[in-house]
């Protein structure tokens, strides 16, 4: 396992919101999914993941409910609220802008 990537808060929020935008997921699945999609580059530490989830829930961007996993265990599943979807769009447009700026910076 690589060194934990230092994530700024907004980026982590964006990653979480994006990850649960398709279907509700529990914390473990969110971390795994981000790790997988980023080809192991992003390791979300539990110490940042769960506080972030609770913060987002507190902001009413995501909501949580207890559901049974495929393995038959109870887990807390997070899904996007309507406000969360808006927030995701906002953060995503910011990410696009930042990517564009990165392109320019690398070219120069």
């Amino acid at each position, binding site marked *: 396992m690589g060194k934990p990537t230092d994530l700024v808060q907004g980026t982590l929020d964006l990653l979480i919101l994006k990850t649960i935008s398709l279907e509700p997921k529990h914390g473990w699945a969110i971390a795994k999914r981000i790790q997988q999609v980023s080809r192991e580059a992003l390791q979300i530490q*539990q110490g940042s993941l*769960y506080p972030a989830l*609770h913060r987002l829930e507190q902001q009413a961007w995501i909501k949580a409910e207890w559901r049974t996993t495929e393995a038959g265990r109870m887990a807390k599943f997070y899904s996007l609220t309507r406000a969360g979807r808006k927030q995701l769009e906002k953060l995503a447009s910011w990410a696009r802008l930042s990517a564009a700026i990165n392109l320019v910076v690398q070219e120069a």
Partner: protein
Amino acid sequence: MRTLDKARMRFRSLFRRSKVEVELEAELRFHLDQLIEENIASGMPPDEARRAALRTIGGMTRFQEECRDMRRVNFIESLAQDVRYAIRRLAKTPAFTGVVIATLALGIGGITAMFSVVQAVLLAPLPYEQPGQLVRVYQQDPNRPALPYYVTGPHFWEIRDHTSSFEGFVALGNYNEKGLDLAHDGQAHRLRVLRVTSGYFRALRSGQLRGRESSGKTRSVYGSLF
């Protein structure tokens, strides 16, 4: 909508704390178990898998604390702690506390008393039908215009008989705290008395409980019992 959701979350975090805590515990426990399973799946013996998982996850209590911070209710809890601390400190220094409480009590009491007087005397309208139309008339010495004098008897009758500016023009005598005695059925009663001129009740439009008020322009002075 979102404000409402936020308020509901805040409420839940604050007042259903034990439930929230249990859920948080269960959530982190689930994560830990997933980690253990993953370690076992990658070929570790169960014991070692568990130890490795605990190592990775670090102090669980620290996460819980951070999650609690994120729920933003810690500040309310620390406020409660501060209040308790303040009470303990105050209890330890009774002299200081006593002086502070006495100062506050006297201050608040004084202001309240003063306001009651101001309210009754200056602010509250008089208990008559049209208090705004009541005026008090003084007479004036042209040489000393700043000093208001009471209207003297002869002047009063003159003004009353000839004025057209007022609906009614009445006078009342000085109030005497001693009052009068009234003997009735062999028993004496001390009455509070104010002497007024005829037309007094009509001018104030206050009506009488008993008796009859003389009308017309008689120059009589009545005793008013109240």
